[in-house]
């Protein structure tokens, strides 16, 4: 009996001498990677392809016939450290969509145990991980993976540890429009949808909270670990022309009930606090506010936005949170203007800025606030 696996699905194998067969609708390079702890290769012989048809202990063997590639795998003879064997397909030009189909099966003798076809329609990848044989609780299983890389063989190889891998920047999802009743959507400000207007409730906007959250990635890399202290702050301008700064640096924590109607609730020095730092903006006094420009800066530690893994989320009562990620930062500049809340005829308009600067005075100059700056510490 053949088990059919959709992408994501897995099944246990009932045999140890198996043949994984990959048939494509056009020319593709089909390869296999023998993987150890952490899903990485160790030596050149772990990579089996048309240029290296059998590995050192003869446990994986490559056989090609036109657009069909077979891998004979002896699971019970594999080194005990082997955790996975992954199978991939790459194309030289265009994307895998041009192949038309990728059919994958796992066979034992004349019997097809598993059929795990990979959908290719409208795909943007040049390289795909088709599936993987993997060991779980002492049992070999096969999973239909069907995921890959737009960049082709290089990111695929890096994924399996052939070169030093860099974490890709997470791609924020496109912002769905808000809906009535309970809102299941999340709004992400991106380059393509840089602003959103908050819906006014009767009586005012209530408490508008802006949260900065960051995590220290635990990394035992070549460069050691660094500690980063990230601060949130804002410039506030009232309708009467008064302006000020709210931030931990200089102990300017602001005030919620009185001008500037913005308060910083605390200072998280390490990123370990579970909910980070909050700015509270008194939305019921919005009529008195003209603009709030929210920024974050690296108070201590190396400038590395990728490592800080920071996000800023704006919460207003009854509205979906508005989020923006700070992982694409400029490596040299320690300050980021995140967003501004502008009083647009009494409405709160949130605009994404996402610009990076060398410090407060440069940021000030860019957005024309006209403060006078001197160095300070906490």
């Amino acid at each position, binding site marked *: 009996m053949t088990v059919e696996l*959709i*992408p*994501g*699905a*897995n099944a246990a194998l009932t045999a140890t001498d198996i043949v994984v067969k990959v048939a494509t609708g056009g020319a593709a390079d089909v390869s296999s990677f023998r993987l150890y702890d952490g899903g990485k290769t160790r030596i050149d012989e772990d990579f089996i392809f048309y240029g290296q048809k059998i590995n050192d202990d003869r446990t994986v063997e490559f056989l090609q016939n036109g657009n069909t590639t077979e891998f004979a795998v002896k699971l019970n003879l594999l080194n005990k450290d082997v955790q996975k064997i992954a199978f991939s397909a790459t194309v030289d030009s265009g994307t895998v969509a041009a192949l038309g189909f990728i059919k994958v099966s796992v066979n034992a003798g004349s019997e097809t145990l598993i059929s795990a076809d990979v959908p290719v329609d409208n795909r*943007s*990848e040049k390289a795909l*991980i088709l599936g993987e044989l993997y060991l*779980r609780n002492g049992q070999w299983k096969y*999973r*239909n*993976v*069907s*995921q*890959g*890389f*737009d*960049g082709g063989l290089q*990111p695929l190889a890096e*994924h399996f540890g052939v070169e030093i*891998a860099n*974490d*890709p920047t*997470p*791609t*924020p*999802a496109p912002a*769905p429009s808000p809906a009535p*009743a*309970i*809102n*299941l959507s*999340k709004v992400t400000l991106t380059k393509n949808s840089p602003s959103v207007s908050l819906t006014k409730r009767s009586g005012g906007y209530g408490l508008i909270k802006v949260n900065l*959250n960051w*995590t220290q*990635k*635990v990394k035992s890399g070549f460069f050691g670990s660094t500690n980063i202290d990230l601060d949130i702050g804002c410039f506030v301008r009232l309708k009467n022309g008064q302006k000020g700064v709210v931030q931990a640096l200089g102990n300017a924590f602001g005030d919620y009930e009185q001008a500037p109607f913005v308060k910083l609730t605390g200072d998280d020095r390490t990123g370990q606090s*579970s*909910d980070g730092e909050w700015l509270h903006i008194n939305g019921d006094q919005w009529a008195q506010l003209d603009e709030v420009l929210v920024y974050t800066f690296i108070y201590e530690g190396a400038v590395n936005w990728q490592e800080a*893994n920071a*996000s800023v*989320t704006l919460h207003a009562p009854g509205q*979906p*949170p508005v*989020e923006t990620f700070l992982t694409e930062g400029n490596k040299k500049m320690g300050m980021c203007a995140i967003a501004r809340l502008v009083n647009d005829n009494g409405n709160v308009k949130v605009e994404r800025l996402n610009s990076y600067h060398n410090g407060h005075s440069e940021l000030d100059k860019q957005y024309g606030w006209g403060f006078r700056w001197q160095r300070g510490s906490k």
Partner: protein
Amino acid sequence: MAVSLSKGGNVSLSKEAPAMTECSVGLGWDDRSTDGAPFDLDASVFMLGEGDKVRSDADFIFYNNLKGEGVEHTGDNRTGEGDGDDEVINVTFASVPADVKKLAFAVTIHEAESRKQNFGQVSNAFIRIVDKSNKTEIARYDLSEDYSTETAMIMGELYRHNNEWKFRAVGQGYNDGLGPLARNYGVNV
């Protein structure tokens, strides 16, 4: 000793953690290393009164409504970046109002349908319940393995029984996402 559950598995809280007063529900997964839309898993809780329905929409604790009486969602993780639990919901039993009979814990994939995702495509996805006092794991579901073709599941329920709280592992998978799940419990979505 944690009980690793697979589909339809069951665990009795009175046996596993008879003295538990606070628990955490932890959801974890690995961030996506391949190209494509991120995997965004969400944990949520339904605080249920009579007839297995929420008393009001405020009883649906999720990424847009983080706090209820006795229940706190510590925040939305959009990518699974980081080790361990990526989303945590804490429950303090004594603070849960008396007319809440049951707490149902759910895990869903955000926009699973449009992103064409299921639990099996996410690496190392799990949901677990932990006794907060001693960090003992009481039950765990391995979503990537055992719920691989699903996009939503009811993990389990904490319910009142003769003046004590009990946990029932439900492990019921669904394919329709958070919306229908919430509607099922009487939330006005």
